[in-house]
């Protein structure tokens, strides 16, 4: 009941015209970047970070939430119409969605994606509203040792479980943690990894690193590859709406998608890849039209799209309640909290309750705005796909550079942006995931601080991390995640025997 009252307070703040305008702008921008290949929500929010000096916190976070949700809606349009998913979360949508579009059913595919996103997004936001306060209650009992172990677990989960190579994930993570430690050590005042450059004493400029990895790195890779902008954009014929039969076949996958998306998104490993895949395989198993799968089955669009949006709300849960980002976008939002001097975590709900509930209320409103933006106006967004690739990527590079240069008026930061771009290119080409690096970059200093606090409390006893029950359990789970693949491979080998 307390949560309900707080939410109502949030609604009254979020419906104030100025906040509503920022929310609307965020949804609009999110849809645009979701549709455009090559730009995602993490990059967009990173580029908006310099504005945090000018705009009040509540308005800015409402805008970020709009961008985050909007990109999920917009991303499905691209995967359905050109079969080049902008984000890994919408890869599964492309499987059936593109086939539907090829068969002239683009309107139905876009409609089930948008309505499914709305339904699942709203269900997940309701879950966030009522589950988050419970998690906060539990998290308030955490000490620094538990926090350290929790961060360790989520870092291991993000790098080792997701992606196709644990080794490459862990390398990306370790690199991120190392880069995160650059600058003056706040406890001892000693400079670290600064290479004698005064510009690095404050640490690596987060915007430069994130934008470099996402925008410049991607542009370098796509230029090297030479395939950008060569895909055919399918036309949307007829109305973007569902027939009676489509509704009948869509509503259950939407609900099941939401049930997969929210809890998995809220887990330390987070991410949308796993729930969308699970939803796809479940729908394929449960459908009464198995012959349509692989040729454009509406259930294969409805379920994964719903799972995708529900997981977006899920990812916000560890971010708002524990201060732990489990995706690249969440890491960028966390850095925005830091630039406002706000520490996300359980205290956020008590110290900044107005802000949190305004943000949560804005998620409900944002979902509604996005449904209205996406169903009738889809024709406008489709036109964005006809922007020639050379102009699109030239524009992305210019905006990225201007954004980073404007943040600190420093060419050093622009150089750093391009250096991270080169790193991003290498990582993309050789199959290294970027999310662990970005998450490590932001969690590195926080983890070190928790570790030091825990050791101060335990008077230097490292065993405290293992002997405290909760902390020990979290570390055990992290170890299990690391060792599970090797263990199962060993067991399989034993089962098949030497012969």
């Amino acid at each position: 009941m307390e949560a309900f009252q707080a939410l109502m307070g949030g609604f009254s703040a979020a419906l104030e015209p100025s906040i509503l305008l920022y929310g609307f702008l965020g949804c609009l921008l999110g849809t645009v970047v979701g549709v455009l290949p090559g730009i995602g929500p993490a990059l967009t929010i990173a580029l908006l970070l310099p504005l945090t000096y000018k705009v009040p916190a509540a308005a800015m976070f409402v805008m970020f939430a709009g961008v985050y949700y909007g990109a999920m809606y917009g991303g499905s349009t691209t995967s359905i119409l050109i079969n080049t998913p902008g984000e890994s979360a919408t890869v599964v949508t492309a499987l059936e969605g593109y086939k539907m579009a090829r068969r002239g059913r683009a309107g139905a595919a876009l409609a089930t994606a948008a309505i499914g996103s709305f339904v699942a997004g709203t269900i997940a936001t309701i879950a966030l509203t009522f589950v988050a306060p419970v998690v906060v209650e539990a998290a308030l009992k955490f000490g620094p040792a538990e926090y350290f172990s929790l961060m360790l677990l989520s870092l291991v989960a993000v790098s080792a479980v997701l992606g196709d190579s644990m080794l490459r994930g862990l390398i990306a993570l370790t690199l991120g943690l190392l880069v995160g430690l650059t600058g003056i050590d706040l406890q001892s005042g000693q400079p670290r990894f600064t290479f004698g450059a005064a510009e690095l004493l404050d640490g690596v400029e987060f915007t430069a690193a994130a934008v470099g990895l996402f925008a410049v790195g991607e542009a370098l890779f796509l230029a090297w590859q030479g395939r950008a902008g060569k895909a055919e954009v399918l036309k949307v014929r007829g109305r973007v709406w569902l027939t009676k039969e489509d509704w009948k076949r869509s509503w259950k996958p939407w609900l099941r998608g939401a049930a997969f998306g929210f809890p998995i998104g809220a887990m330390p490993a987070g991410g949308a890849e796993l729930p969308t895949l699970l939803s796809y395989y479940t729908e394929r198993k449960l459908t009464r039209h198995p012959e349509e799968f692989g040729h454009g089955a509406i259930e294969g669009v409805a379920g994964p799209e719903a799972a995708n949006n529900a997981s977006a709300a899920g990812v916000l849960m560890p971010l708002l309640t524990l201060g732990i980002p489990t995706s690249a976008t969440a890491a960028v939002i966390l850095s925005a909290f830091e630039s406002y001097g706000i520490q996300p975590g359980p205290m956020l709900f008590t110290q900044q309750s107005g802000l949190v509930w305004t943000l949560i209320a804005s998620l409900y409103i944002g979902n509604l705005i996005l449904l209205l933006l996406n169903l009738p106006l889809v024709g406008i967004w489709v036109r964005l796909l006809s922007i020639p690739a050379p102009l699109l990527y030239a524009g992305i590079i210019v905006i990225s550079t201007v954004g980073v240069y404007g943040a600190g008026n420093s060419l050093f930061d622009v150089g750093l942006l391009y250096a991270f771009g080169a790193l991003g290119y290498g990582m993309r080409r050789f199959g290294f995931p970027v999310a662990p690096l970005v998450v490590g970059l932001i969690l590195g200093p926080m983890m070190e601080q928790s570790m030091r606090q825990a050791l101060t409390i335990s008077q230097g006893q490292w065993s405290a991390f293992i002997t405290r029950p909760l902390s020990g359990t979290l570390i055990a789970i992290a170890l299990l995640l690391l060792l599970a693949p090797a263990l199962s491979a060993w067991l399989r080998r034993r089962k098949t025997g030497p012969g």
Partner: protein
Amino acid sequence: MAGALIAGVALAAWQVLLIPEPPVAADVGPQTMPAALVVLLGVLASAYLYQALTGRASDATHDSDESPLPGRHARFLNLVAGLAAMLLLTPLAGIGPACVAAFVLVARAFDSRRLLRDLLVGLVFVFVIWYVFDRLLGVQLGPFTSLLPRF
């Protein structure tokens, strides 16, 4: 990539050795976590090097869906030239000309051969971006160009 990683580890190890001793002793000094991470990265990078040497590291060059089309070096160099133009021209001519030059070169990197169109679109786009950031949002970018005193 494996070679670059190993070089990175060496560089990071050298920087860890340069971290000064803190004036007050602590359980976890400023070197502890960096040193632990450098050791971990060293182990992981060696494992990756081994994978690369035995031909098991993935590279988009050899992937049928991801492999580059012919002309990759020229495209890549055009993009790098665009980034270099930005770094070199900003102090010399201001952010405007630097961005326009970068715009044209990046467009070329994506196989555009319509120089005049790119130049015109770039000029209008960069001016609008500069105006919105510098004049409307108050993000200080300096004058559009230092070559013309009025801008």
